[in-house]
């Protein structure tokens, strides 16, 4: 028999004898590798699929909306340096009446060339056929809207087009890279039931809106590497006198920026979580291997005396770590790849990608294997070094007895607070401060993982409540088309169920300070402001003075401006010149980036009589049905948004995802917590078996003895929980800082229940591990242990 085969047998038998611990560590590795393989594969999948989708359907790079410009302008736009393709369109938002939907909905009508998809922002025909230009009522509808409302090909939808009631017939269903996220203009949440995109032949849309030979929307594709800013400025300059509301790039396109935000969030998960898991695994390998080398000093010495080389012995102990890690990595890779396929399918359905093509990302699997191998070697390193350094003669002598010292609290003169068993626990923990520290950090990691998992739903809940309940208290928002006078307010007040109405004026602007510029809208608000309130971070209303602007905090931050300073405002309705306005306040907002002004001041600035963009309504819900019927048939109402319905739909979508995510988080946290606590307890049991048995012999009961051991776990867990809270909170803070999009900022809000839940999971893991170790303690033979010399 060769040296190797004997050591291999020893290795296999030892792995088998400590299978519980080995499995616990392999599970931690598996969880880390699974998360890593899953999230990097999904990340790659989303990026590839997005890019292919954008490319194949020629998603534009630059967008602009304007009032009306002649199509003869097209060559001039195409002549801008870097532009490779220009597509002009007629786009209009209208109120529609969907069969089976009580509330009025909104649709965005987009013109298409006769009988074929447009050159830019092409759609993918999912079913049905292209609209026949010979029939003015044929449309394609977006799939999300079609499915959410359970429509059929051939169904008709009533629409108010430029004041006229008209029926549109669905002949096909389409997908577009421009509306991966389908969000109605001005809204912050998607609502597929109440907002849809429709495509219809250009000539009919032109006729309906008196836009013959003209356009009000333009999209450009650029050469790779062209100067974005330059193109935007040139386009702005060209279109300014046609009422352009400011050109913008893909990163500001609503759907594209939502998708990018999602991908951004996944990236964090792909890095942070696996690092935590593999770090914990490395620590656990370090602990059990160090212990093994310690107890096998005599064996190592004997092997060396027999002539086994250092490298053979080093490989022997390293192999233990590598085997455990390899098992975890293989299981993790399989599980991660499987999860990734399922998740890719889910994402594909959620985003409605026209093509599904998923390949496991071999690079991420290779990376996961390498990183976990590094964790194994890193974890085993110290123990292997101890084994190598051991001189044969030295190893034959018994190790120096365990040295203990008074614990810190006792040195501080607080010993009277601690009964003997607790003093034993503290001294034991203090004897190996690094191990204790890592155990605490390991358990804390589990707590932090849970807290971070709960943070997103907590924050979203707070955000929705702050933004859509506390600040914006209306039930229905109506936008007039075209602008209305104050008489419209009185008309709305007379509708059934309407209790209170507040009008508003909104105008698109560029706000500049120094070289920083942002495209947004100034909202003119009335004195009363019962339905749309400006608040500070403590949810208290703030003042809106008769002159000057109040900015949302995110906008103020983006422009680096604070109250008392001035900004330059350019009004994007075709008029020349700019205005210098003082910033008089900053309002807390978690969604959107608006500026606010007193409505009368805004009227004066715009040199207009009291024109209104829209109104907010407070409504008696008992009269909803009649009100909605009226609104569906009121020609001047351009669009209607029912806040509550949208909110409920959104909350339901989130709630579904949250449950799945939480199940995963609890599973992962439990794996870490049990891995750490169980291993800590097993090592402690190993080291202290003699001591604990002595206690049994001199008359302590099973439970009293167990308590000495399990008390150690309790102390570690109790210290780890607040540490975990702090770590989790810091990670959440980092996430909040890293994630701030134009649409949303995440408030740093963690519900007390989330703290409790994370503590409860850690405590449960401690109790389960404690129970397993307690059972093991009962099986140890009292008499045998005392015979063995330490």
């Amino acid at each position: 028999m060769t040296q190797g085969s004997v050591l291999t047998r020893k290795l296999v038998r030892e792995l088998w004898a400590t299978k519980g611990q080995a499995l616990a560590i392999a599970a931690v590795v598996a969880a880390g590798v699974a998360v890593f393989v899953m999230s990097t594969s999904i990340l790659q999948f989303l990026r590839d699929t997005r890019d292919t989708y954008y490319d194949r359907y020629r998603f534009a790079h630059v967008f602009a909306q304007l009032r009306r410009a002649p199509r003869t302008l097209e060559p001039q736009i195409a002549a801008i340096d870097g532009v490779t393709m220009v597509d002009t369109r007629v786009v209009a938002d209208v109120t529609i009446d969907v069969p089976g939907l009580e509330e009025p909905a909104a649709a965005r009508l987009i013109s298409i060339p006769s009988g074929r998809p447009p050159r830019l922002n092409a759609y993918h025909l999912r079913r049905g056929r292209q609209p026949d230009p010979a029939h003015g009522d044929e449309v394609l509808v977006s799939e999300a809207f079609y499915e959410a409302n359970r429509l059929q090909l051939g169904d008709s939808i009533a629409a108010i087009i430029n004041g006229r009631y008209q029926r549109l017939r669905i002949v096909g269903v389409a997908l577009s890279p421009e509306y991966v996220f389908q969000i109605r203009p001005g809204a912050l949440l998607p609502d597929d039931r109440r907002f849809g995109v429709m495509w219809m032949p250009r000539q009919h849309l032109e006729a309906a809106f008196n836009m013959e030979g003209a356009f009000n929307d333009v999209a450009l594709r650029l050469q790779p590497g062209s100067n974005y800013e330059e193109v935007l400025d040139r386009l702005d300059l060209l279109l300014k006198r046609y009422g352009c509301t400011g050109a913008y790039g893909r990163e500001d396109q609503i759907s594209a920026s939502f998708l990018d935000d999602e991908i951004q969030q996944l990236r964090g998960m792909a890095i942070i979580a696996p690092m935590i898991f593999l770090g914990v695994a490395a620590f656990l390998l370090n602990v059990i291997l160090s212990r093994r080398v310690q107890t096998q000093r005599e064996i190592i010495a004997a092997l060396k005396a027999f002539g086994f080389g250092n490298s053979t012995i080093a490989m022997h102990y390293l192999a233990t770590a590598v085997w455990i890690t390899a098992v975890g990595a293989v299981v993790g890779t399989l599980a991660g790849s499987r999860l990734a396929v399922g998740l890719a399918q889910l994402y594909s359905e959620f985003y409605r990608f026209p093509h599904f093509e998923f390949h496991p990302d071999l690079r991420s699997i290779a990376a996961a294997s390498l990183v976990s191998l590094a964790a194994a070697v890193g974890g085993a390193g110290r123990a292997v070094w101890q084994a190598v350094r051991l001189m044969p003669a030295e190893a034959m002598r018994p190790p120096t007895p365990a040295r203990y010292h008074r614990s810190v609290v006792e040195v501080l003169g607080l010993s009277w607070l601690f009964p003997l068993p607790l003093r034993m626990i503290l001294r034991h923990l203090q004897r190996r401060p690094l191990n204790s520290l890592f155990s605490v950090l390991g358990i804390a990691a589990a707590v932090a993982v849970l807290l971070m998992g709960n943070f997103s739903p907590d924050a979203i809940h707070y955000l929705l409540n702050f933004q859509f309940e506390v600040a914006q208290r209306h039930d229905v928002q109506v936008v007039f088309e075209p602008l209305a006078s104050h008489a419209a307010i009185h008309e709305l007040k007379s509708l059934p169920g309407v209790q209170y109405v507040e009008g508003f004026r909104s105008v698109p602007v560029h706000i500049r300070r120094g070289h920083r510029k942002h495209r947004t809208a100034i909202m003119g608000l009335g004195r009363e402001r019962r339905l749309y309130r400006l608040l500070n971070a403590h949810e208290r209303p703030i003042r809106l003075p008769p002159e000057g602007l109040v900015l949302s905090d995110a906008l103020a931050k983006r422009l680096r401006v604070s109250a008392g300073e001035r900004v330059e405002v350019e009004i994007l309705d075709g008029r020349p010149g700019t205005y210098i306005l003082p910033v008089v306040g900053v309002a807390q907002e978690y969604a959107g980036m608006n500026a606010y002004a007193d409505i009368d001041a805004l009227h004066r600035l715009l040199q207009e009589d009291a024109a209104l963009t829209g109104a907010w309504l407070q409504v008696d819900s008992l009269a909803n049905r009649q009100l909605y019927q009226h609104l569906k048939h009121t020609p001047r109402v351009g669009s209607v948004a029912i806040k509550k319905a949208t909110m409920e739909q959104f909350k339901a979508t989130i709630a579904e995802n949250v449950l799945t995510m939480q199940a995963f988080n609890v599973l992962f946290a439990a794996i870490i917590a049990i891995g750490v606590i169980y291993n800590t307890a097993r090592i402690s049991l190993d080291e202290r078996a003699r001591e604990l048995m002595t206690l049994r012999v001199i008359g302590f009961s099973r439970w009293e003895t167990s308590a000495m051991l399990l008390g150690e776990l309790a102390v570690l867990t109790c210290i780890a929980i607040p540490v975990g809270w702090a770590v989790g909170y810091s990670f959440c803070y980092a996430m909040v800082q890293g994630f701030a999009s134009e649409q949303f900022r995440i408030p740093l809000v963690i519900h007390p229940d989330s703290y409790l839940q994370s503590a409860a999971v850690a405590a449960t893991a401690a109790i389960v591990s404690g129970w397993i170790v307690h059972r093991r303690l009962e099986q140890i033979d009292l008499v045998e242990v005392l015979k063995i010399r330490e």
Partner: protein
Amino acid sequence: MGEVAVHALRGIDLEVRHGEFLVLLGPSGSGKSTLLNIIGGLDRPTTGQVFFKQLDLAAASDRQLTLYRRRSVGFVFQFYNLIPSLTALENVALVTEVVDDPMRPEEALEMVGLLDRKDHFPAQLSGGQQQRVAIARAIAKRPEVLLCDEPTGALDAATGVTVLQTIDRINRQLGTTTMIITHNAAIGAMADRILHMRDGQIAALENNASRKPPEEIQW
């Protein structure tokens, strides 16, 4: 391979008197440790009866045995088995905290002559000192029975004598019934009776006319 019944002890019939000093002698595997374990309530015989006063140790529950060990028995082991994370005084106090009417821990350390080392941890004490702390721990509860398994087995001769002196003094001063297991035939001289064991049976029971003081024992 089937289980083979091994009889560690056979046909033992022994009565130990209150306050008696008994030494058990015999080679390895002669059953002396098994006998001590049964008397100490660590093990139960498969058949037969063992009475401590009115309590049948052979029929007692785990709970009863735990209470018996806690209240009535003091153990001294070959390898001392002190709790390494507790000081000498605390090792003694650990026991006195859970029994009725114990000595003060300082008093027990005083009896073994180690009061000046009360704040030392086991790792800071010599082998003999550790064994004397173990004796202090065993006697601090004022046990009725003191059981010592090879108390000098890990010590050199001079230190062993000090430990034996301590045990002898406890037996005389407190009247604690004392049993010592040893390989060392010379130690038999300090006992009231010597029990010779072989193959799980009592080979001979020897009465000493007088007990020799430990310092006169040579080995």
